[in-house]
C-alpha cells in the first residue's frame, strides 16, 4: 500500500470535449478508482484516447470537470504510454535516465538496469532507442513510464501494431505492474486483451459512456445493445 496521497478516484463530471464542431466526448460522468485494471473499450472514434488524455491532464474539457481525490502534484503521480511512443534520440538506457530525471528521481545506474531488465531489454541498454523493434520500443516506453514510479499508468492501445509474441511481452509487463499495485487504465479494441487483463470495463460509443461494470459481467451480460453487438463482432457505428 502506498503511503503517499492518492489521486484516486479520478472523477469525470459531465465532461464534454469537441474538436471544432465534432463532439468527441458527450457529458461523460464516471469514476476510476483503485483496484484491478480499468479497460476502456469501444469502436474507433468512440473517445477512448480523448478520455485517457483528459484523465492524464493532457486535454481540458470544453465543459464539465475532471477531479482527483488529491489534486496536488497529481501529474507527477501519473504516467502515460502512447500508442506510438516517441523514442528520444539516445540509447535505451539514456531514455530511462531521461524519464528518471524528469520525475525528479536519482539517476541511479542500478535503477536503470533493473527497469530495463524488468521489460526484458537488459541486453539492449546501449542500443539507440530508435533502432529497436516496435515491440521493444513499446516495452521501453513502459519502462520509461515506470521510471516515474506512477500511482496510475495510462496506456493507449499499447499493442495495436504488435505481433502476438510482442503483444504477450507487453501484456505480461502490464499484468505484473498491476499486481505490484499500480492502477492501470488502458484503452484497447482488442476483445481478447480486455478479457485477459481487465478487472473493470468502461464501454464508450460515439463519445458517450454506455457501460461501466466489472469485466466478468460485461463479457457475460452486457447491458446495452451496442455492447452486445460490439462483443458479437458486429460493426458499431
Amino acid at each position: 500500500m502506498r503511503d503517499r496521497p492518492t489521486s484516486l478516484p479520478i472523477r469525470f463530471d459531465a465532461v464534454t470535449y469537441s474538436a471544432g464542431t465534432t463532439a468527441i466526448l458527450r457529458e461523460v460522468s464516471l469514476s476510476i478508482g483503485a483496484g484491478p485494471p480499468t479497460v476502456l473499450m469501444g469502436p474507433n472514434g468512440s473517445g477512448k484516447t480523448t478520455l485517457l488524455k483528459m484523465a492524464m491532464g493532457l486535454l481540458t474539457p470544453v465543459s464539465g470537470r475532471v477531479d482527483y481525490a488529491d489534486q496536488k502534484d497529481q501529474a507527477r503521480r501519473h504516467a502515460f504510454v502512447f500508442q506510438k511512443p516517441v523514442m528520444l534520440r539516445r540509447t535505451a538506457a539514456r531514455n530511462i535516465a531521461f524519464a528518471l530525471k524528469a520525475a525528479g528521481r536519482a539517476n541511479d545506474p542500478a535503477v536503470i538496469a533493473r527497469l530495463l531488465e524488468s521489460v526484458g531489454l537488459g541486453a539492449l541498454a546501449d542500443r539507440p532507442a530508435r533502432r529497436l523493434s516496435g515491440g521493444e520500443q513499446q516495452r521501453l516506453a513502459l519502462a520509461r513510464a515506470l521510471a516515474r514510479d506512477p500511482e496510475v499508468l495510462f496506456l493507449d492501445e499499447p499493442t495495436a501494431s504488435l505481433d502476438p509474441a510482442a503483444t504477450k511481452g507487453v501484456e505480461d509487463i502490464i499484468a505484473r505492474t498491476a499486481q505490484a499495485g499500480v492502477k492501470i487504465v488502458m484503452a484497447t479494441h482488442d476483445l481478447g486483451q480486455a478479457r485477459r487483463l481487465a478487472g473493470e470495463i468502461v464501454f464508450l460509443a460515439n463519445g458517450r459512456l454506455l457501460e461501466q461494470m466489472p469485466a466478468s459481467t460485461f463479457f457475460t451480460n452486457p447491458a446495452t445493445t451496442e455492447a452486445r453487438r460490439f462483443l458479437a463482432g458486429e460493426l458499431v457505428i
Partner: protein
Amino acid sequence: MSALELIVSGDARLFAIVGLSLIVTLSATFFAAVIGMPLGALIALTRFPGRNALIVILNGCMGLPPVVVGLGVFLLLSRSGPLGELGILFTPQAMIIAQAVLIGPIIAALTRQVIEDLWAEYRDELVAMDLSRTSRVATLLWDARFSLMTILLAGFGRAAAEVGAVMIVGGNIDGFTRVMTTTIALETSKGNLALAIGLGLVLISIILLINAMAWAVRGWAERHAG
C-alpha cells in the same frame, strides 16, 4: 607562380588570408548560432500576438542581400552611427558582426521550423513527463542536433562565401581585414589569377572538408545514439 604552387609551397600571404577568413566566419557562425538557435526554438514553442508576422519577416530575412547588411552595419558602426564610439569599423570584429547579422536569420528561421516540427511529434510525450518549458527546449534542441548541425553548415557556407558585407565593413585592408572572398574579387580585377584561383580552391576545399567532417560525425552519432 601557379595557384597550386602557392598552396603547396605554403605561401604565407595566402595562408594568412585563409586564417583570418576562418576566424571571422567561424566566429560569426558561433555568435549567430548562440542567438539564433534559442530564438528559433522560443518562437517555435511560444504563441503570442504577431507571431505569424514575425515568422514571415524572419523567413524573409534569410534572403537579405549581403551589401544591404553591410551598409546597415556600416551605418551602425560609422563614427556618426549609434555604435560609432566602439571604433571597430574596418576591423575583423565589424566583419564578424556583419556576417552574424547575415546568417543569424537563416539559423533562427530554420531552427524554428525544425523545432516546431519536432515539437508536434514530441508534445504529448514531453507534457506527459511534466517537463518544464526550459527542459522541453533543451530536449528538443538536443534531439534535433543532427538537423541543427546541417543548419549550422548552411550558415557557415553562406558566411564563408559572402563578399559584399565584409567588403563594406572591413574595407579589404591588406594584412588586416582581407579575407578569401574579398581577395579573390580584388586579385581577379587586377589580373592576378593565380592567387585568386588558389584562394578559390582553398575556399571550396574548406567548405567541402567541413561538410565531410560533419557528415562523418552525424553518421557516427546516428549509429550510436539513434
